[in-house]
């Protein structure tokens, strides 16, 4: 076109980013890549192609990682661990700093390569992905430097297997690798089959800056390679970002292996527009929410919820805006939307959109045509969508947004939370009261006020519900790669200590209580919704002392009691709504009342467990002290304001779970019970607890203490019974969001496996026994951290 012609049309014209340097890099490697293991690239073997989604052309051949490749990589990582840890925080900080610097030096190469391999616009890789990668390494160089000071008592987990997705290939690498290395772990990373190139380029950068051999290993391949990595016995930690479906498989696969797991999974994130929002800005928000990275974003704002009074205007503005979007070759600097990653995804998106149309929803696509070459899908808006429609429920992972309306803030929250997922949410209003009222009510790990898709290394990212658990970024993210140093040193229970209580029908088991003056017969019940009631099945089981004396009977709770307890907890959020100060008062009161009745509890513990009088007194005294600890923490274990790099406050709030299941060990029946239930209660989390199976009567004696201490109904339910039976019911209950289990190794494995259903966050002991009297093992911030989840609320400000 001539200047003269363009003078009339004022078209943008093509503005291609040159790919010559990236192409030369590929050529230099003969467009064939092996794995990166032990600091060296292996020979390419058993290769498969990786494509440019913009035109389907092949970029390079990469190797399909075999079990042997995975094994070699894990061994290299294991071998590298001692030296890497011996380097200390500062030594590792220097390496991470070098990686950050090197990423910046080669920023454009990485951006172009990413855009080629993934098909996303060069603008995004250039302005977002790669700068965030560098930022992530800088930030975590800092954590490496400060590790010993900031995380005393914690140690690196060990060898980490990390499996990352194709939507942000290099950024997800950074999110995984940076904290792992900062904490002193070594890594085997499996990049996505569709997008392996930037991980390989990054490996080369690591080689260039002299990262010690074996600290970072990259094994490429498809899902089979990922499965082989996750299944490898040599791992101490698995981190996965990807679909909820695969996350579930990994949860089951890794159950009982005593490894740490973090999962960052799918989403169907709400984008809520209230009537007083700046609608033009909200429209741009939608663009950034759902047409960023072709909508292939786990936290994409894919459910647009608009207040009915402005819905028509909002939708009209949106349709007009969609006409202005530009879709095309990823390396063109003037496009908004690139190609979909692969034909299989394109088919899935197409199918779901067809389903949406068939469901009767109104489908709008702009009048311009998407490019025919390559794997493109046009931006799509569905209106007149019912919440029950598939397109409103299922993650489409494409440039498709569905729009629903609401009438009131309460209804907005209800609709927003009407999903199995809970990754992110966006709230648009000019009313700060409304924004800060709604944000905490949303079941999502990240809430963006008047903004969307903001990320930073200093702020944690991660989900609620079936969007997974664990956080990436910030202090909260570092914990995913650390564990208390004492944990690995804890001994295992021996068989006898784990013996299940006598079966329900064991009428007459044990010896009758001795003595001429029989004690008054007492009936322990289940404690549920603030009342004592008989267990659903009306069975009891004998509680025997070590010498075989029957010291009483305990009710045998069953699955229906669990159901009712969870129901009771969900029904009353009074405990969660109470102020931290008020909760502290209640916990202090429990301590006071327990202290008043100390002799009675000492006697109970002594007779039940056979410990000495002194030991029994110590257990009660320590329990009172522990209650004080958590009463004290109630208003002190507070969140943070993360210093993310622009004008906003990023509030990292510690939010209670709605319902936490707690399954207690047998020993120290009062102290362990108090140690496990009260950190959660102090945080406002409602608890359904299974006390010591063998010696539940210390917990059942607590009912009266609780009743006299103003603990609201539903805050704590206590269900005596057979530990692993009840643990299984809790693990399989979709209303229970988190579950702690302290029992056998098998029970721990079962809890982890069965929790895959709704991906509840679990904390299990893997059959290890801790010393409840030891303040390091028995109380403290680790318990509190497990009792809450961190929600990051981003609040930009400025009038």
């Amino acid at each position, binding site marked *: 076109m001539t200047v003269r012609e363009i003078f009339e049309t*004022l078209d943008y014209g093509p*503005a291609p980013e040159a790919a010559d340097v990236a192409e030369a890099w590929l050529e230099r490697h003969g467009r064939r890549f092996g794995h990166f293991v032990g600091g060296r690239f292996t020979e390419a073997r058993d290769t498969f192609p990786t494509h440019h989604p913009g035109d389907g052309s092949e970029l390079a051949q990469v190797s399909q990682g075999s079990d042997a490749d995975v094994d070699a990589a894990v061994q290299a990582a294991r071998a590298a661990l001692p030296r890497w840890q011996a380097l200390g925080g500062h030594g590792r900080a220097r390496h991470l700093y070098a990686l950050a610097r090197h990423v910046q030096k080669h920023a454009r190469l990485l951006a172009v390569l990413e855009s080629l391999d993934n098909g996303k616009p060069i603008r995004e890789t250039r302005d977002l992905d790669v700068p965030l990668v560098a930022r992530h390494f800088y930030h975590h160089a800092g954590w490496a430097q400060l590790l010993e000071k900031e995380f005393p008592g914690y140690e690196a987990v060990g060898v980490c297997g990390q499996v990352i997705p194709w939507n942000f290939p290099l950024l997800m690498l950074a999110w995984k690798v940076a904290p792992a290395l900062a904490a002193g772990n070594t890594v085997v990373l499996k990049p996505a089959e569709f997008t392996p190139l930037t991980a390989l380029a990054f490996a080369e950068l690591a080689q260039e800056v002299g990262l010690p051999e074996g600290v970072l290993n990259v094994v490429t391949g498809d899902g089979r390679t990922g499965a082989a990595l996750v299944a490898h016995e040599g791992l101490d930690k698995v981190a996965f970002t990807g679909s909820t479906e695969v996350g579930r498989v990994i949860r089951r696969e890794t159950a009982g292996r005593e490894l740490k797991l973090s999962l960052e999974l799918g989403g169907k994130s709400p984008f809520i527009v209230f009537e007083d929002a700046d609608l033009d800005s909200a429209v*741009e928000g939608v663009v950034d929410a759902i047409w960023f990275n072709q909508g292939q974003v786990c936290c994409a704002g894919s459910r647009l919820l608009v207040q009915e009074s402005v819905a028509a205007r909002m939708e009209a503005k949106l349709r007009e805006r969609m006409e202005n979007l530009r879709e095309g070759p990823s390396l063109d600097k003037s496009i908004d939307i690139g190609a979909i990653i692969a034909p299989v995804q394109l088919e899935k998106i197409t199918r779901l959109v067809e389903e949406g149309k068939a469901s009767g929803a109104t489908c709008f696509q702009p009048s311009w045509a998407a490019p025919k070459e390559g794997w493109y899908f046009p931006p799509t808006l569905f209106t007149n969508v019912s919440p029950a429609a598939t397109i409103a429920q299922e993650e489409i992972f494409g440039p498709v947004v569905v729009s629903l309306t609401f009438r009131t803030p309460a209804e907005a929250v209800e609709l927003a939370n009407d999903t199995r997922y809970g990754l992110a949410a966006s709230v648009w209003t000019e009313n700060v009261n409304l924004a800060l009222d709604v944000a905490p009510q949303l079941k999502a790990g990240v809430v963006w006020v008047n903004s969307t898709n903001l990320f930073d290394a200093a702020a944690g990212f991660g989900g609620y519900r079936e969007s997974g658990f664990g956080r990436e970024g910030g202090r909260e993210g570092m914990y995913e790669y650390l564990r208390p140093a004492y944990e690995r040193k804890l001994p295992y229970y021996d068989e006898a200590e784990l013996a299940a209580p006598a079966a329900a029908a064991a009428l007459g088991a044990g010896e009758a209580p001795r003595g001429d003056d029989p004690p008054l017969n007492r009936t322990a019940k289940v404690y549920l919704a603030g009342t004592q009631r008989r267990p659903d099945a009306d069975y009891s089981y004998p509680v025997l002392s070590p010498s075989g004396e029957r010291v009483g009977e305990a009710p045998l709770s069953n699955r229906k009691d669990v159901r009712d307890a969870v129901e009771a907890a969900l029904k009353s959020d009074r405990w969660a709504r109470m102020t931290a100060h008020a909760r502290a008062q209640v916990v202090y009161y429990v301590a006071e009342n327990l202290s008043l009745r100390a002799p009675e509890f000492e006697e109970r513990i002594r007779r039940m467990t056979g410990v000495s009088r002194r030991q029994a007194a110590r257990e009660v005294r320590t329990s009172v002290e522990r209650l004080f600890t958590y009463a004290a923490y109630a208003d002190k274990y507070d969140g943070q304001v993360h210093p993310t790099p622009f004008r906003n406050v990023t509030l990292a709030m510690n939010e209670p779970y709605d319902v936490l299941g707690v399954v207690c060990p047998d020993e120290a029946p009062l102290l362990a019970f108090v140690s496990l239930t009260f950190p959660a209660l102090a945080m406002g989390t409602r608890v359904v607890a299974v006390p010591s199976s063998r010696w539940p009567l210390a917990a059942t004696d607590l009912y009266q203490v609780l009743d006299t201490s103003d603990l609201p109904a539903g805050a704590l339910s206590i269900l005596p019974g057979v530990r692993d039976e009840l643990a299984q019911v809790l693990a399989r209950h979709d209303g229970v969001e988190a579950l702690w289990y302290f029992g056998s190794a098998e029970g721990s494995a079962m809890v982890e496996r069965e929790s895959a259903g709704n991906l509840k966050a679990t904390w299990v002991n893997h059959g290890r026994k801790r010393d409840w009297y030891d303040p390091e093992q028995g109380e403290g911030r680790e318990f509190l951290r497990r009792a809450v989840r961190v929600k990051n609320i981003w609040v930009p400000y400025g009038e």
Partner: protein
Amino acid sequence: MSVRTEEWREAAGPAPSGALPRNEGTELILDWVQAARVNRSAVERRAATLTTRRSVKKQWQAAWLLKAITLIDLTTLAGDDTPGRVRRLCAKALNPVREDLLEALGVADLGITVGAVCVYHEMVPVAVQALRGSGVPVAAVSTGFPAGLSPFPTRVEEIVRSVSAGAAEIDVVISRRLALTHDWQGLYEELRSFREACGEAHMKVILATGELGTLRNVYRASLVAMMAGADFIKTSTGKESVNATLPVSLTMVRAIREYHERTGQAVGFKPAGGLRTAKDAMAWMILMREELGRRWLEPDLLRFGASSLLADIERQLEHHVTGRYSAFHRHPLG
């Protein structure tokens, strides 16, 4: 009331032609003014990424820059302006680009001139004389420019005099106090009087956004100015400490869009002050194309208030033609 804008928003196609009817304004619709919502952080984010989302290169860039020249209100507003200085400026306005460059670009016959010459009232006759027959209008800053604090009758009288001296466009300043105290009725009436005084001359309303405090005020003042019959709304006098910025411009442009959507009347936009480089001009043109569409890239709907912008554009055009980086002294002074 509502007019669809799609027909103006086609990606390609011939330049829109045909004069638009003038904005006659509306009554003052206070509900509308008060309902305005502008989220500063979100506006800043959009403004920051507008120019990273679009890139115009090679002959496209040359063509856009040529178009940018036609949008310039070539301005001199200095206390030491003299007839000689103004005549020189007018000569530059009529021949903004070296002939050899225009020929190399294949546009020598398009008769490219700047959009207007903008001066103080005293210089209007000189400029009118210098531009006679060229079709390039003379714009006069008026109404007690830049502070707008002279007596109201004087300000109105100033408009009348400039118009009778031959100014075809009048750049008026608003009384900032009316916007700052949210006396929208007062502002509306003030501007209605100005518009009446303008008669056939087009009225550009300078909001002095750098003195309005918040983007929400900018949006509201924009709406009131359009309701009062502004042909253009303009960011700044060039004399405030903060002049045209992209976030402020985005806010005003969105107000223009909404006004157009609701009334069907098209109002122009003039960023002024601080636009010095070809890159700046491209940024504002991208803003207009993205937010309002192709039609708003014509001189009847977009002007750049600038004095040194042209010199930088000339250098960029020479670079396009020769592949060499140019120097200011290779282009005749304005």
